């Protein structure tokens, strides 16, 4: 143990210095922000590998190992004792490093990170992080037994860690819904996730500890067999090259892991707009695309030869900004804001494609003042429009009857939630509308600040709330952050904010979703058509299927361009893509036939 003193003293000194510095509030703020994100896991990594690599290789290099080997102690026992001593030192180091995260807690206006820290708590953080670092430490110790110089051990330790990290990252990409980061992450998010899921916590914890002990045993046995043996430089270099090669190969393999589907047809979008198109929706083979102030209808009835029906500007005499759009039948409902005095107005512009191939604009629906009326999206069922709106804290669904002969005004309102803002007010990153809506068959699913509400719209003019599942954000700052929804008919996915997972609900009975489990949500942005779910992934769209309490990736829809928006209708997935071609941005709409 004695020779570990430098580590402990050094760590103690470092922490003391940092603690003192943290008395300055500015330093504390800046430091902690960076620390929590990246420095803490890095420090942990350095501690684990440095400790492990040093133990055997340093003694070998300085030849004091011979001293121990000349004593009546089994070589395996030497490794065993060093392992124990090192583990204790690692635990102390980790405790110190973790405790530093709790310096300066208790500020009056905690932000998300701060609240997260308070929720997770020191013991959980320690218990979550220790098995992972312990495993790394054992790996470094094993390497240390194989090598005869401290420098070589440290370098190979870090190379291995890097390669491992790369491979894990690739694995996470290959199997995007595996729980890789729960197994190997060493940060607050991971800790929080494990806190929420005790089964996962224990599973990962025990397995990692078991692996650690196995590694230590391997080190002891290896050393026992041949205390004087060490890997020659030739083998080390070969090993490093092999690892690097493996990492590179996996990246390549990862890129082509999924069977790829090429588009059935693709066309370039030429809109006379200085702004890029951002919103898209489809119904049948009709695709509507809107940029900030223009609208285009595209015909994909023959996917191999798509063409543009018509393109038109928004028929308004002031500045218009499109937020999103929904298509039903041959009509597009474009939600946006219109510049007006004294404040901007939120409106729904209704554009219908005539058989003649022109655009006919109906009277827009005005929803209200944009500062007081916060609208998420529009859902259409037959002649009825459903709009989820947050008016002064009141989350509600407003129904507009567009049947011929109806007044066109608001037909009904159902309040689903009240948003209560607590001090402090929401941060700039919290979208104020707070709601997300999804229509599936005869039901509307709605997420608001405090609940998931299911509305039955069998009687379209009168939605009825049939069930309500309340939830609470663990961290006050996230109250009011919207939760995305997606469904494939059998499962409903609700995106939680912290940790970043999808909650998987069984909607065999669509009126009463039943929570079945959680699936990691790495990037967000998911749509569904038919039985499948589609999600952006790298340079294309992944086709996913919910099965067995998890998500399974089936195919990869790509033609090499960056996706910007996805829409799905009738067994075809439409992707709005952009490509940079010598400094000019070009946009395309591609159609992928995904019908089985």
């Amino acid at each position: 143990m004695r020779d570990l003193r430098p580590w402990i003293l050094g760590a103690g000194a470092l922490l003391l210095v940092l603690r003192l510095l943290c008395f300055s509030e500015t330093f504390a703020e800046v430091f902690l922000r960076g620390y929590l994100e990246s420095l803490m896991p890095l420090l942990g990594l350095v501690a684990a590998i440095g400790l492990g690599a040093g133990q055997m290789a340093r003694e070998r290099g300085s030849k004091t190992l011979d001293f121990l080997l000349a004593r009546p102690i089994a070589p395996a026992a030497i490794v065993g004792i060093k392992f124990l001593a090192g583990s204790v030192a690692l635990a102390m180091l980790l405790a110190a490093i973790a405790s530093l995260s709790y310096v300066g807690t208790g500020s009056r206006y905690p932000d998300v990170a701060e609240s997260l820290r308070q929720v997770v708590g020191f013991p959980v953080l320690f218990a979550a992080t220790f098995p992972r670092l312990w495993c790394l430490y054992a790996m470094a110790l094993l390497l240390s037994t194989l090598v005869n110089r401290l420098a070589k051990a440290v370098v190979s330790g870090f190379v291995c860690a890097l390669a491992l990290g790369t491979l894990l990252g690739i694995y996470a990409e290959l199997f995007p819904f595996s729980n890789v980061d729960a197994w190997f992450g060493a940060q607050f998010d991971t800790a929080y996730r494990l806190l929420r899921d005790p089964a996962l916590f224990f599973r990962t914890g025990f397995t990692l500890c078991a692996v650690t002990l196995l590694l230590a045993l391997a080190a002891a046995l290896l050393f026992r067999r041949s205390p004087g043996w060490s890997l020659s430089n030739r083998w080390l270099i070969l090993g490093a090259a092999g690892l690097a090669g493996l990492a590179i190969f996996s990246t390549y393999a990862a890129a082509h892991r999924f069977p790829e589907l090429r588009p059935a047809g693709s066309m370039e979008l030429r809109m006379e707009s200085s702004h890029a198109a951002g919103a898209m929706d489809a119904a049948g083979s009709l695709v509507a695309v809107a940029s900030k102030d223009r609208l285009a209808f595209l015909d994909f009835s023959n996917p191999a030869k798509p063409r543009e029906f018509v393109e038109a500007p928004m028929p308004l005499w002031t500045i218009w900004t499109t937020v999103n759009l929904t298509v039903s039948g041959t009509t597009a409902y474009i939600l946006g804001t219109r510049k007006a005095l004294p404040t901007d107005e939120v409106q729904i512009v209704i554009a219908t494609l005539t058989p003649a191939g022109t655009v006919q604009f109906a009277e827009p629906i005005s929803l209200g003042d944009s500062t007081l009326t916060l609208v998420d999206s529009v859902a259409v069922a037959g002649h009825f429009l459903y709009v989820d709106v947050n008016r002064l804290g009141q989350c509600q669904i407003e129904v507009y009857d567009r049947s011929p002969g109806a007044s066109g005004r608001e037909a009904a309102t159902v309040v689903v939630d009240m948003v209560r803002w607590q001090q402090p007010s929401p941060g700039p990153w919290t979208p104020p509308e707070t709601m997300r809506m999804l229509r599936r068959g005869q039901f509307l699913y709605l997420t608001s600040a405090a609940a998931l509400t299911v509305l039955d719209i069998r009687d379209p003019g009168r939605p009825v709330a049939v069930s309500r599942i309340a939830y609470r954000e663990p961290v006050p700052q996230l109250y009011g952050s919207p939760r995305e929804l997606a469904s494939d008919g059998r499962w409903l996915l609700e995106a939680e904010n912290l940790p970043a997972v999808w909650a998987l609900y069984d909607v065999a009975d669509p009126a009463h979703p039943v929570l079945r489990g959680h699936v990691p949500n790495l990037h967000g942005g998911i749509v569904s058509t038919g039985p499948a779910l589609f999600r952006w992934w790298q340079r294309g769209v992944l086709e996913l299927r919910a099965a067995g309490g998890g998500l399974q990736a089936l195919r990869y829809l790509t033609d090499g361009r960056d996706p910007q928006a996805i829409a799905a209708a009738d067994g075809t997935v439409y992707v709005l893509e952009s490509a940079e071609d010598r400094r000019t941005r070009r946009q395309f709409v591609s159609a992928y036939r995904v019908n089985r």
Partner: protein
Amino acid sequence: MSQPAIAIQGLSKRFGKRAAVDGLSFEVPTGGVCGFLGRNGAGKTTAIRMLMNLTDPSAGQALLLGLDSRRHHAELMSRVGYVAEAPILYDWMTVRELVRFTSRFYERWNTAAVDALLGRFGIDDRQKVRHLSRGTHAQLALALALGHDPELLILDEPATGLDVLVRRDFLESIIQIIQQEGRTVLLSSHLVHEVERVADQIVVIDEGRLLVSARLDDLKLRTGQSLEEIFVGLVGRREEVRQ
């Protein structure tokens, strides 16, 4: 007394293509001093390290006190004392700490004897090991090797490059050990004259191979030469053959 203290058979160690030790076989009977001679780089240290299980042999077997050095490592180490060439000790410890640290490994530890030795060598036990002179360092290594009263003492060039007094200390210790029943000493050195004083048996190796293993008295009677002459004759002759 029936089994030899050291029995080596076909011991070899290859580093790549080069054989540092090549098919070495000899025995050292219990109760004597064996002088292990060879030029620099002849393979003495490698052979000794293999005896001590600090290096694995490429081939062959080494038996110490009748036990295989690889399989009975821990048991052997409690009965064997070893002083390496330029021994490395934990230099951040004080002498007292190091003695205490070492003593904990052994069941039998003769504290009085070690203290007596340290006194005789004039070593202040509050000093840090790294502050000791080279000679004192070597004496300390010897004291530590003797603390557990070993049956077999293996010395690898223990006093090379040290002053006469230190060398005398080593010789005295060797003699003291030999006086006890059943004790054996393997002394590897290239100070031929000192080996000549105390050796019962002589083993000479060159380029990893055994040249001779015989009793010193017999060798002298047979050749009528001093040990130095014998040694030069053996090793020098190989040079001629090589040329």
